[in-house]
């Protein structure tokens, strides 16, 4: 057992000392933070955009509708304006007669074509009143954000106009047209209310991605380590001092400990960045802290109970042992990096295959697919923690699935050790599947 620790210690220290470890440990949290921040930041930016304001409104309805639209547009964009942005142009309303409309459109087109001029023009005419048709032409005609905002403003202005025609008081109209909704979503489980629905998805998918990435990354490390020992021939000296099974176990344990260390650092650094750094960025972009990504992140971390944390760690360990053992066996069968990737394929298919079902698990975390996958030892390490993040799972199921997973690990270690024992000393051509099967039988 002493020698197991010697191997695990070497594996751990050599990896933690490597430049790659440092780079990956810092890069991933920054990347994750960026993933959360960029959409929020982009939304904030486009909300602050002034394009939808810098337009000409050609109003041929004779009802003052253009004026209403212009007011709404001006108010809407000032609300989301960036603090430091220069005061932008207001929409220009031109009330024209239906007969003069074509000429007005021509001149507006020329204005849009001039550089640094207005961005576009909006046409409101009789057909707007009769068939709710509006026309817009401009540089930003393909911008969904801008056109949506225009449409919303026109719709709101039109509602106001119709209400006024029906004799509703202006104050009431203002009240109605400024009515905004704020829906909060709350998840209910047998423990009561808790967290938001969106946060659960963040949490579930986050856990799944983290586990998948760690298993792939550190599993590949084990494979490469085994291959290195074989190709540098150091393996023979090592195996003359320690049983191959013990060597395999030590290597997997050492690399697994590296994975755990990295995950703890990932979580700690991400949490630090999210709490200390993200608010600064969002604030400078003019996004209220409680909005956009912020709440989802906060809520998803809030959903991370101690129990769930322990289960995640256990599943990582089991999943890692399962896959890393098999990848080590794959590494021991071959002599070159290319052959190693090929030998690792069947193992990777198991892993990636499980990931393909993630969508159906998110859509229906209690469905048959989710249930079956959270019991199979090769998919449960990813699917089960994710399911637990999405919806409550009875603890008996979790315990059962962990037990099955542990059995799977025992089988994987047994199989891997037999292949490893023979494979480590086999040089020359790549073995066929039949040969590997023979190794397993005779080892």
């Amino acid at each position, binding site marked *: 057992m*002493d*020698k197991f620790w*010697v*191997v695990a210690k*070497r594996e751990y220290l*050599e990896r933690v000392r*490597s430049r790659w470890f440092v780079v990956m440990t810092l890069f991933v949290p920054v990347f994750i933070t960026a993933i959360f921040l960029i959409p929020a930041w982009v939304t904030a930016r486009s909300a602050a955009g002034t394009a939808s304001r810098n337009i000409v409104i050609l109003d041929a309805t004779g009802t003052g509708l253009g004026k209403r639209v212009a007011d709404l547009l001006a108010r809407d964009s000032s609300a989301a304006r960036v603090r430091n942005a220069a005061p932008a142009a207001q929409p220009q309303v031109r009330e024209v007669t239906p007969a003069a409309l074509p000429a007005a459109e021509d001149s507006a087109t020329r204005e849009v074509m001039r550089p640094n001029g207005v961005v576009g023009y909006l046409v409101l005419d009789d057909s707007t009143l009769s068939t709710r048709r509006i026309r817009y032409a401009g540089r930003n005609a393909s911008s969904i954000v801008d056109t949506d905002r225009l449409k919303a403003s026109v719709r709101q202005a039109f509602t106001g106009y119709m209400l006024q025609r029906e004799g509703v008081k202006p104050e009431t109209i203002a009240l109605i047209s400024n009515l905004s909704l704020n829906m909060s979503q709350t998840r209910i489980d047998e423990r009561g209310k808790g967290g938001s629905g969106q946060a659960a998805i963040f949490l579930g998918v986050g856990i799944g991605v983290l586990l998948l990435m760690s298993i792939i990354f550190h599993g590949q490390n084990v494979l490469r380590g085994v291959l*290195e*020992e074989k*190709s*540098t*021939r*150091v393996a*023979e*000296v*090592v*195996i*003359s*001092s*320690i049983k191959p099974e013990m060597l395999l176990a030590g290597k997997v344990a050492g690399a697994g400990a590296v994975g755990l260390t990295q995950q703890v650092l990932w979580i700690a650094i991400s949490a630090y960045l999210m709490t200390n750094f993200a608010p600064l960025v969002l604030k400078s972009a003019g996004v209220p802290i409680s909005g956009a990504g912020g709440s989802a992140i906060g809520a998803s971390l809030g959903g991370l109970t101690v129990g769930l944390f322990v289960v995640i760690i256990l599943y990582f360990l089991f999943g890692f042992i399962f896959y890393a053992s098999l990848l080590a066996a794959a590494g021991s069968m071959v002599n070159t990096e290319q052959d190693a990737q090929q030998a690792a394929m069947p193992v990777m298919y198991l892993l990636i295959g499980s990931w393909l079902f993630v969508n159906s698990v998110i859509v229906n975390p209690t469905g048959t697919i989710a249930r079956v996958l959270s019991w199979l030892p090769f998919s449960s390490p990813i699917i089960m923690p994710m399911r637990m993040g999405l919806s409550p799972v009875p603890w008996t199921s979790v315990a059962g699935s962990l037990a099955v997973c542990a059995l799977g690990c025992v089988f994987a270690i047994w199989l891997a050790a037999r292949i490893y024992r023979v494979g480590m*000393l086999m*040089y*020359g051509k790549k073995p066929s599947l039949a040969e590997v099967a*023979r190794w397993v039988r005779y080892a």
Partner: protein
Amino acid sequence: MHDNDLAIDIRGVTKKYEEHVAVRDLSLQVPRGAVYGLLGPNGAGKTTTIRMLLDIIAPDAGSIAIFGRPNHEAGLLNRVGYLPEERGLYRKMQVRRVLRFLAELKGLKAGDADKRIDEWLERFGLTTKERDWGNSKIDELSRGMQQKVQFIATLIHDPELVILDEPFSGLDPINAQALKDTVVDLKRRGKTVVFSTHVMENAERMCDAVCIIARGEKVLDGQVTDVRTSSGRRNVALALVGNTAARPSENGVGHVLGDPKLVRHFDDNNRYFEIELAPGADAQDLLHRLIEAGARIERFELILPSLHQIFIERVGASGVETGMSGHG
């Protein structure tokens, strides 16, 4: 069970692979304190035997004991040092860390290991005033230096039994000398050294006893002098004056050496011939005939047949099977 006087006791060991038998019913005993040579052509089963000895692979039949204990007994292999034929170390690791790792795998405490590592590095000139190679990565070392680190790794735990598989292959003359000195030093300190080689001269110079194997079977074994006298005959070493040795046919000597009644076989060693007499032939007759033929003789000596001669005689060219070196 107690340690006994045999360092190695292999009895009736057989190892089969799919297509061939690598080792067949092999038995050999190595006394403690001996320098023992395992001789044979490539593919004879030397490496397979050594790997079974070290419990890297398991024999299909037979038993292997080291110091009188079964070789799979826990901790026993901590008393054995091994230098494999194919050598290599972790490329990206520092020399000191590699050595500490391998020493700890042999049951040494990290502190003890560090002290010994420093001694060995200094002894092999890997730490000098200008540079301490112990802190360099294996990658940064020259081939010769890597070989030295590999020796250190083999001997760092002061093993009682040292097993070297083809230790001289790929060594430059300086490291070969260092290795020879190390073996002599180990012997002087009462350690047992077993090495495999297909270079008979090394074995003849260094070994107390040898075992010749071919095609997975033992051909003969025993003390080197016993082996050489076992044939019960003497060979003749013949050297001619001047540069005539290389062209015997030109001065009539060739006719004498070509006479099947006198000479069974001769081997041109460039500086001298090693001549195996035909059965019943007399060395005096040969000398007489040579002088008659006008040979100017510089050396005419009755010698024990060299291991090389015995090897060629007993194993023959057919013993050298190619393409099996992977299973050594």
